[in-house]
């Protein structure tokens, strides 16, 4: 017997079939003895269940149940309807929402303050002085620190790097015009930016793919940023020229390790 026929038999026994469907099923049962037996079996079962239901004695439990309820009620209060507030008005949801919002706020505040915490200096302190003094290079590795002194001329070069970033700080103190050249191989370095951090009208700078040139009279400070294209130990050459003559030169290697 297939499942569909069994379903049909039960629907008929429950009186859910239309007269037409009922008639069709009865016709089918005359040709299918197995289905007919199944039908008769469940018909008998249904009748016996009904008979059992009708044979049950009257319990009349109402009085006993209400008496028990009364006894319980004397000991405790009657059940109160629990009011379920809408989701967003529930205390737990409100507290959870505030808690999560607090966590997020704390996280963003931490992110904002984190650099200061790491460097151990306050934001206010870093802002003092000029751009030359404000940039904190503590996290950059020192490539070399050079000093050249001659009568009427003092030059310092502080070259640092971090990853592919190279930063050269040039400080020139000279009574007459001095040119400072930073030369490098264009395939190794890419000039990113030159900033005259603290300079007067008598200074200037120019840059091309393979060099940066600073012309200075008086006290001037520059920051030169280069990108080490391959992160390999590459060299930059630093020169000082006066009246077209080289008076000092040195090389600095970055990304040494």
């Amino acid at each position, binding site marked *: 017997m297939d*499942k569909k026929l*069994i*379903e049909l038999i*039960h629907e008929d026994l429950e009186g859910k079939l239309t007269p037409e469907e009922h008639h069709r099923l009865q016709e089918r049962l005359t040709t299918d003895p197995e289905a007919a037996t*199944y039908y*008769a*079996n*469940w018909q*008998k*079962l*249904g009748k*016996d*269940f009904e*008979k*059992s*239901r009708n*044979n*049950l*004695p*009257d*319990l009349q*439990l*109402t009085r*006993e*149940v*209400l008496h*028990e*309820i*009364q006894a*319980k*009620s004397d000991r405790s209060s*009657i*059940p*109160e*309807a*629990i009011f379920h507030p809408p989701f967003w008005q529930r205390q737990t949801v409100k507290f959870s929402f505030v808690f999560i919002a607090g966590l997020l706020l704390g996280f963003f505040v931490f992110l904002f303050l984190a650099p200061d915490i790491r460097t151990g200096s306050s934001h206010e302190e870093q802002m003092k002085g000029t751009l030359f003094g404000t940039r904190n290079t503590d996290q950059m590795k020192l490539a070399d620190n050079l000093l050249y002194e001659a009568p009427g001329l003092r030059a310092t070069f502080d070259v640092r790097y971090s990853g592919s970033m190279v930063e050269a700080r040039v400080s020139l103190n000279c009574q007459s015009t001095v040119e400072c050249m930073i030369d490098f191989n264009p395939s190794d370095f890419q000039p990113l930016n030159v900033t005259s951090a603290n300079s007067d009208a008598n200074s200037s700078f120019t840059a091309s793919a393979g060099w940066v040139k600073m012309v200075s009279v008086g006290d001037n400070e520059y920051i030169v940023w280069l990108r080490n294209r391959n992160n390999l130990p590459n060299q930059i050459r630093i020169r000082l020229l006066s009246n077209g003559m080289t008076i000092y030169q040195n090389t600095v290697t970055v990304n040494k390790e």
Partner: protein
Amino acid sequence: MINQDDHTLVLETLQGNQPSFGILVERYEKKIYGMILQMTDDHEAARDLTQEIFLKAYLNLSSFNLKHRFFSWIYRISLNETINYLKRRKRFQPLESALSIPAVETDSIHESAAEKKIRETLRNLREDYRSLILLKYWFGLSYEEIAETLGISTKKVKNRLYYARLTFRDKLLATNYFQ
């Protein structure tokens, strides 16, 4: 007042009107008692359990969700309480046997051999099949109402009931019930 629907009676009970709950007891006591009797074959236990179920229902009425139907809620409580009772009884049966305590039988009430066979067969059925057969043929619930009572889908009810019917009939055939 008797014609009031279940939800109205539940709300009135929650407002402190105990007679309204009395009407609900009157309305369902016989069916629940009969169902427990089918499962336990013990009139005294069935009577006590029925009383306990209504008391429990009253005390937990505040947790009743008015979106559902009262009968599906009380039938579910009845099924769970009876299953728990049968588990407890099974645990203590060896002790009763040792003390030669005779089980309370249903002799006091007239019943046919056929009814006894149905009851015995039902008790030997799997727990879920037994619940389904009783909800369908004792309480006369529709597939949708059974699904609501058991908290499962209508499709699952239809599928499980199909196998429950086949198993139930096969077991009854073995007892010569149909002859």
